[in-house]
């Protein structure tokens, strides 16, 4: 009982989300005419409250604690991710509404908010899980609720088809992962990540080491699916194209961040051992090489496939695959700096990607098209949108002074400082960043230089949408001025609670 009470005190953001989720469902079931407005208000309030609770969950300098008999941990690293994940959900609700998305227009509001809160809750659990049971459960909870979100347009074939593909790919990858986890349990005799680490750092024969290494392949399938890494990326373009754009925007940032959080926990917290410094880890199993190959393939496939895309949603899907490759550099580095680079990258990615998807949604609202060719002449019709989209794209390319550059800077630095045997990897990533610049600049050229759409009217942008685009664009370069604060926050968050 005392354990439950102690745990509940450190579990307040999740409890707030659960309560909010149930309230949203109740309000929607009431059938009253005010249910949509109240549902939206409740969702925003719940997310804001959870964010507030998450920010003050641990006193500064606290190493964290494990709760619910070691199933879940509350530590500074997890809190950083919780803040990113809650911010992603909050921004999604605030930026995308049933008014400014043509695809969601006329569909039920309550279910959407309830599903969004459910995904958020499971994302938080995923970022904090400390046990392979919890890891698998939260990963599946994120997946299953996102399948439903993708199929949100019930009468639309594309949306349902996308969802079915997502589901089948998810079932195969997580099935393989579960099989791997069961073998890992068999070999180590425990489901707790810290205990697995203890076991692996102990006396282990070469054969045993090889067996664990092979099992990691199976487990990586699940992580790879969650963050859309090659060769588990096939669902990504189809799902991003078929899903309603607000859902696409949300899925491209939040579950991806949670996926990287759990990768960090799994690989750093159980597959590596503490080295000389507090966070310089030496691998017990040789997994960085495996992930390095996956990461290089991911960015290359994503960038090369994006070159020929004409549908904006598909293009951004491939671009998000490539970004997963860059972010993975932070995991491969296996150092405190790598983890920090990854966290900064994910926070920056939130603003640039949500911004790009918001512009895509607004163009679709006005013109009803996702085709890049219809973006021609956009600068005459909507100068604000064009400039903002330019900022988001430059940030995605990684050009200073935008936040995307800072993210890339930190992960590249973390790789380069690992030593000469990692340099080819950094070079491969830099070449990829150059390839990526081509298709991002192509979008800008289409918007600003190409002729077309001369006779179409200027954009009728609602004030709220204009303000949202403006603020997001500002969020892409203003953080540079507070950089020491952000960097300090990320540095302080580099504590992974390793106890049971």
């Amino acid at each position, binding site marked *: 009982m005392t354990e439950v009470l102690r745990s509940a005190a450190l579990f307040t953001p999740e409890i707030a989300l659960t309560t909010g989720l149930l309230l949203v469902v109740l309000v929607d079931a009431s059938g009253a005419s005010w249910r949509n407005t109240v549902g939206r208000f409740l969702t925003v309030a719940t997310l804001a409250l959870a964010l507030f609770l998450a920010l003050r969950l641990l006193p500064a300098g606290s190493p964290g604690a494990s709760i619910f008999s070691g199933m879940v941990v509350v530590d500074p690293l997890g809190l950083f991710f919780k803040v990113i994940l809650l911010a992603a959900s909050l921004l999604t609700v605030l930026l995308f509404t049933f008014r400014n998305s043509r695809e969601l227009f006329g569909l039920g509001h309550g279910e959407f908010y309830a599903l969004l809160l459910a995904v958020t809750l499971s994302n938080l659990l995923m970022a904090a899980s400390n046990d392979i049971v919890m890891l698998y459960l939260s990963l599946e909870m994120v997946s*299953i609720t996102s399948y439903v979100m993708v199929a949100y347009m019930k009468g639309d074939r594309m949306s*349902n088809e996308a969802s079915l593909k997502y*589901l*089948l790919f998810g079932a195969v990858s997580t099935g393989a992962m579960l099989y791997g986890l069961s073998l890992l349990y068999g070999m180590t*005799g425990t*489901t707790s990540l810290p205990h697995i680490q203890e076991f692996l750092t102990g006396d282990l024969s070469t054969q045993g080491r090889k067996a664990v290494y092979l099992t990691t392949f199976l487990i990586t399938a699940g992580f790879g699916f969650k963050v859309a890494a090659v060769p588990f990326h096939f669902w990504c373009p189809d799902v991003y194209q*078929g899903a309603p754009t607000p859902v696409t925007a949300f899925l491209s940032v939040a579950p991806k961040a949670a996926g990287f959080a759990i990768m960090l926990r799994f690989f750093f917290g159980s597959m590596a051992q503490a080295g000389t410094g507090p966070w310089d880890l030496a691998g017990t199993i040789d997994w960085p090489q495996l992930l390095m190959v996956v990461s290089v393939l991911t960015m290359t496939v994503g960038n090369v496939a994006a070159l020929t895309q004409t549908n904006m949603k598909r293009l951004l899907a491939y671009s998000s695959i490539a970004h997963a490759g860059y972010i993975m550099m932070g995991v491969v580095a296996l150092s405190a700096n790598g983890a920090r680079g990854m966290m900064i990258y994910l926070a920056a990615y939130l603003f640039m990607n949500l911004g790009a998807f918001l512009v895509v949604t607004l163009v679709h609202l006005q013109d009803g098209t996702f085709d890049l060719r219809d973006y021609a002449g956009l600068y005459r019709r909507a100068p604000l949108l064009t400039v903002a989209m330019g900022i988001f794209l430059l940030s995605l390319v990684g050009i200073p002074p935008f936040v995307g550059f800072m993210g890339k800077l930190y992960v590249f630095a973390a790789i380069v400082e690992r030593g000469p045997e990692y340099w080819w990897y950094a070079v491969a990533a830099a070449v990829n960043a150059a390839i990526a610049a081509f298709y991002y600049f192509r979008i800008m050229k289409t918007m600003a230089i190409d002729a077309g759409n001369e006779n179409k009217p200027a954009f009728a942008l609602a004030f709220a949408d204009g303000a949202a685009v403006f603020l997001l664009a500002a969020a892409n370069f203003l953080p540079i001025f507070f950089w020491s604060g952000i960097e300090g926050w990320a540095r302080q968050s580099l504590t992974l609670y390793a106890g049971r």
Partner: protein
Amino acid sequence: MITLPHYLVVSAALFSLGMLGILTRRNAVNVLMGVELVLNSANLNLVAFSRFGPGNLGGQLFAVFVIVIAAAEVAVALAIVLTLYRLRRTPNLDEADILKG
């Protein structure tokens, strides 16, 4: 005497059959049956390891959760397959091809 290796062989066979089913079947419902086989192969592993291994109940507990997840997953999957069936009158996965990957 049935020992741990027997269980592992059966579970590996189940896993492979499940994957084979997922990869070769065209009917969505059959594919979902393959998914069930994969999940249950892991369950078999977990319970066998728990019984013959360290003697803790972690694996059996895990298996119970996996059963719940499998039920939830199939419920959602069947709902989506049904909606798709209403929209195009076929459960065949090959014909779900508007989105080209």
